[in-house]
């Protein structure tokens, strides 16, 4: 029994030789749809990466009180520099801050005359890079109060806009993306299904004759299903191969541009998912096609 089933599944593969044109057309369509789906996923993936790279940063500006003990402050600075997920730290003594201000304003020597008696407090600016999926609700707020609790710290500013912007983007993307992916999957399934169905239309008489000589339904369906699955698999793999080519091409095209824009390939699980989806779509659409 199992031998016969395997034999029927194998016939699905050998049957593909019989109508090469229809098979190739179907395969081409499946590959291209897989490629399109892949392009969509690729764009999405890289968009999210870019989002993480650019928007996953939170900046804190710490102001110590003006009469803080510089020794203590400097010790705190070295502690701060060892903080988790810290990306960049810039520290300013009151003199440095004044100097900085003076250069920024290009204000001549007026301000520098104040040196030694700088009206500015010691400050530090801390950038944290946190991938948004690790940013739980109160993460930034907790860090804020932590920093505020440091001794002699007068004020901590942080840019909640930037932080919530990243949050909001992610939420928006997540809200829109799943419907779009589902919709896209539907589209792919319909295109592939139609193609498989059309290529079955050209085999209509074969199915009729098999029925007439007493074949049982599964005898007719199993090879068709395995044909569908094989086409899905091949198409998915070819599509992924093309996607890799496209990615390399795009990266080449971007290489000349001064932007540090990288286009990464899909992570392994997404690529595998795409191939699986192609197989499933092939199976499902031939299942639907042979039922009717």
């Amino acid at each position, binding site marked *: 029994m199992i031998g*016969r089933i395997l034999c029927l599944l194998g016939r699905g593969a050998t049957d593909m030789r*019989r109508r090469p044109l229809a098979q190739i057309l179907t395969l081409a369509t499946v590959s291209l749809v897989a490629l399109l789906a892949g392009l969509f996923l690729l764009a999405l993936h890289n968009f999210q990466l870019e989002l993480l790279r650019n928007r996953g940063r939170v900046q804190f500006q710490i102001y110590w009180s003006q009469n803080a003990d510089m020794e203590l402050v400097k010790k705190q600075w070295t502690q701060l520099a060892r903080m988790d997920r810290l990306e960049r730290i810039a520290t300013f003594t009151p003199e440095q801050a004044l100097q900085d201000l003076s250069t920024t304003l290009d204000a001549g020597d007026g301000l520098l005359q104040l040196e030694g008696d700088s009206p500015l407090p010691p400050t530090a600016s801390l950038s944290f890079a946190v991938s948004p999926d690790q940013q739980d609700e109160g993460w930034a707020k907790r860090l804020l109060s932590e920093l505020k609790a440091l001794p002699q710290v007068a004020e901590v500013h942080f840019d909640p806009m930037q932080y919530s912007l990243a949050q909001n983007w992610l939420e928006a993307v997540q809200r829109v993306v799943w419907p779009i992916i589902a919709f896209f999957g539907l589209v792919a399934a319909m295109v592939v299904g139609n193609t498989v169905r059309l290529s079955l239309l050209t085999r209509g*008489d074969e199915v009729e*004759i098999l029925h007439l*000589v007493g074949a049982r339904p599964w*005898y007719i369906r199993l090879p068709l299903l395995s044909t569908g699955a094989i086409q899905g698999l091949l198409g998915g793999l070819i599509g992924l191969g093309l996607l890799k080519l496209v990615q390399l091409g795009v990266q080449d095209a971007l290489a000349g541009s001064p932007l540090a824009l990288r286009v990464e390939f899909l992570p392994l699980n997404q690529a595998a998912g795409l191939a699986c989806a192609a197989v499933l779509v092939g199976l499902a659409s031939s299942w639907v096609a042979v039922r009717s």
Partner: protein
Amino acid sequence: MVRVERLSYNFGRNWAVKDVSFTVEKGEFVFLTGASGAGKTTLLRLLYGALPVTRGLAEVAGFTLNRLKKRSLPDLRRNVGVVFQDFKILPRRTVFDNVALALEVRGIPRQVRERRVRAILRALGLENKSYSLCGHLSGGEQQRVAIARSMVGQPSVILADEPTGNLDLDLSLHLMSVFKQFNDFGATILMATHNRDILACVPEARVIHLKDGGIDGAAPEPEAVS
């Protein structure tokens, strides 16, 4: 083996088969004649389940067609060999494959399949065309492939629809002897034909004559009358 009672079938307003009753006993050889459009093909299609029996009763090879479940239709068709008027062979497969198909769907092992297919092809004079594609055969050769496929499964009933339309008389007579041989080994044969020479070569066979879908009273047909 074949029992039909008050069987009728209509395509829209056209009653292709009208109130037909007859019985064919096991091992009988019966001809079905009638002008073009008399309903021979339609009657045969009802008997192998290609059209549903909606009016009257039909029994073939122990299967009652009126209440045949969809999943036992293949069983009926494995017990009934059919020669289709339009052959219904696969043009892109070889002669061998086409004939072997009838055995393959029954799950008969390859060796047995090969032996039986070769034997039947030899009997029908097709052994040198075994590996030709059916689409590349002459009309008469295709018809013989259709006949070979109907016989290879050694069914208990053979329904043959105009099996010699594309064959010359010599070959037709030879094929009739093959049918006769099957009949002698116990197969029940119901054959639709126009050819009077064919009728003549099985003199002991009964003839059912259809006219406009009904059995023509003029022809001797005791079962239908009773």
